[in-house]
């Protein structure tokens, strides 16, 4: 006698319906878990069985997600670098200059050019009168060709500053040697503090302290190096280390007193920034002969680094939107790939769907199975895509020289988006599979 007889011994010949009903209700919750788990296992085994197809599908998603992640990572890194660069002076610094740092039209350029130069007299008036101004200084820049022996470097930013507190305001740090003293600075000595690129380009990358005491030639005059700055890195691919600081008095003597300068003011804390700006603005308006209520051009520009960051944001936001859209399109294409492959998968497995339906799979069981398959591919593709995207971002950042910003948000974004793509592109094929008639599905080969 077979064992089947033994298993049926307790229930008689056949289990009656009344025996089945409570069992069904009792396991209703279990049913869903088991069916979902089954769907997941089926998805995995089907993905394993069709390796090439799975690889192609994955690639579709990986490319899409990697594009999005790389773009997000690079843009975030860029934003952060820009913010850090322009607020390296801190949110406690503002500047007064003849024209804004960013001019967006020719009309503005003409208007700003008609203004009077900001002079050392303006600066001294502010130093004297503004009580909320903590540290102040002036700076002027000119691009020059710099030489050392037979080495030459063009377009070096030569920055004349006074007093030496400007080093503090610019937030640069000394690597070797020293900053000059205010006494040295005031006597129009040919001394300089050089950026890291100067050592690299003109001294063949020797140890910074070995460059001390040597001369560089700027516009035909020799300057003695007294200090070397720590490297500051790049922004937009441009080095921030290709610069030479010289005392403002020396700058005035050798590069002319005609150029307008920029006044820098630092307050002890961000709270006092506004008050200091008000005082400085009043002083400058007075000096430009503006009375209270005169709404015509003030004749000078007072701005903080926030202003610049805002301008940067405005200038780049449209570019970013386009970039995001392009990345989004590649993810969309990835979604189409998944849908296409899922439709093929459903058609190929019509027989299997018929078998499953014949032995009791309901619509939602079949729907879940194919949906989970799509989501699994998409989520795995998303995870690989996130890693690829970070890799891509690192390579690009290495090539153009700024740090990337890897955030948990972009990981969640990548995996989340790909899962959404999985659901959206899996829904239609899964629905088609779920709706199949068992007899027709069984009949297919």
């Amino acid at each position, binding site marked *: 006698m077979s064992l089947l007889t033994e298993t*049926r011994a307790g229930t008689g010949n056949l289990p009656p319906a009344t025996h089945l009903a409570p069992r*069904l209700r009792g396991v209703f919750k279990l049913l869903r878990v088991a*069916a979902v788990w089954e769907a997941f296992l089926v998805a995995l085994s089907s993905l394993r069985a069709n390796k090439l197809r799975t690889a192609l599908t994955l690639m579709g998603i990986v490319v899409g997600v990697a594009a999005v992640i790389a773009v997000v990572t690079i843009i975030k890194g860029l934003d952060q670098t820009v913010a850090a660069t322009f607020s390296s002076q801190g949110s406690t610094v503002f500047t007064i200059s003849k024209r804004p740092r960013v001019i967006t039209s020719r009309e503005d350029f003409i208007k700003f050019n008609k203004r009077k130069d900001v002079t050392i007299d303006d600066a001294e008036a502010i130093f004297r009168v503004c009580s909320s101004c903590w540290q102040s200084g002036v700076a002027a820049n000119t691009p020059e060709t710099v030489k050392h022996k037979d080495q030459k470097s063009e377009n070096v930013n030569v920055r004349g500053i006074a007093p030496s507190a400007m080093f503090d305001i610019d937030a640069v740090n000394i690597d070797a040697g020293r900053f000059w003293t205010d006494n040295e600075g005031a006597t129009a000595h040919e001394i300089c503090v050089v950026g890291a690129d100067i050592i690299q380009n003109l001294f063949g990358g020797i140890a910074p302290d070995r460059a001390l005491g040597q001369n560089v030639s700027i516009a035909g005059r020799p300057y003695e190096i007294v200090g070397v700055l720590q490297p500051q890195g790049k922004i937009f691919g441009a080095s921030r280390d290709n610069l030479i600081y010289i005392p403002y008095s020396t700058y005035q003597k050798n590069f002319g007193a005609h150029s307008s300068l920029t006044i820098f003011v630092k307050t002890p804390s961000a709270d006092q920034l506004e008050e200091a700006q008000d005082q400085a603005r009043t002083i400058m308006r007075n000096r430009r002969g503006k009375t209270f209520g005169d709404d015509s051009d003030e004749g000078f520009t007072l701005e903080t680094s926030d202003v610049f960051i805002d301008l940067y944001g405005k200038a780049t936001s449209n570019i970013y939107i386009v970039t995001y859209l392009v990345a989004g399109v590649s993810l969309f294409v990835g979604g189409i790939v998944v849908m296409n492959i899922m439709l093929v998968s459903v058609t190929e497995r019509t027989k299997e769907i018929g078998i499953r339906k014949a032995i009791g799979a309901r619509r939602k069981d079949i729907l879940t199975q194919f949906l989970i398959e799509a989501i699994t591919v998409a989520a795995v593709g998303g995870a690989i895509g996130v890693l690829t995207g970070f890799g891509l971002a690192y390579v690009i950042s290495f090539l153009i020289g700024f740090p990337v910003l890897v955030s948990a948000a972009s990981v969640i974004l990548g995996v989340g988006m790909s899962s959404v793509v999985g659901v959206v592109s899996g829904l239609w094929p899964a629905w088609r599979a779920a709706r199949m008639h068992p007899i027709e599905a069984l009949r297919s080969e």
Partner: protein
Amino acid sequence: MSDVTLASPPSPTVLPEQPLRAHDANSLISMRDIWKTYEMGSEQVHALHGVSFDIPKGEYIAIIGPSGSGKSTLMNLIGCLDTPSKGEYWLNAKNVSEMDDDELARIRNQEVGFVFQTFNLLARATALHNVELPLIYGGIGSSQRHEMATEALRAVDLADRITHRPNELSGGQRQRVAIARALVNHPSILLADEPTGALDTHTSKEIMDLFERLHGEGNTIIVVTHEHDIAARAHRVISIRDGLIEKDEKIR
């Protein structure tokens, strides 16, 4: 002569529920005036023209007929894969003819065990997993599922093949896996469609012997076939021709 041997001849003027409850309380299957009509373009094709019969519990019955006779349509209806265009079908005291897709899926899962000509096993799944499948859709927990599936495979003498995939099994072994799958949920009926159609004579005999044994153990078995020697193993034979019951006779 066609309907003289009907177990309980239907009366077209009486509501179907009445005779079912009055006369057929013991019937596992009650079909009353079942029609199945297909639309073929603008034409209507009747695959079944008013078929009625009863099958009590524990019977071993063969449905026989040439191709195009409507026997496949009838099998699909008995197996709850389809619903009739007209008429009533009561299976285990439930009116199946009015159920929706998901309710039918539930009935197939709980009440019907299918055995197909081409086995219809999942190619990538092991024998054990194939047998577990109805239990998965029935919501049985994994340890109980494993136990039940193993027992069902042991009952068809395949205890040593549970980890094999269909392509590692012979035709007869595959059909026995399919039979284990059909029986694992303890269904009300075992419904076999040309179960030996893809098997050689020797293996066919083995499978038919297995059916006989299962019938001996109390299962209700319905075999749909066009082969007379297969039908001859049953205790009752219903012959279908042109969508009607031609003959319904007890042969043992």
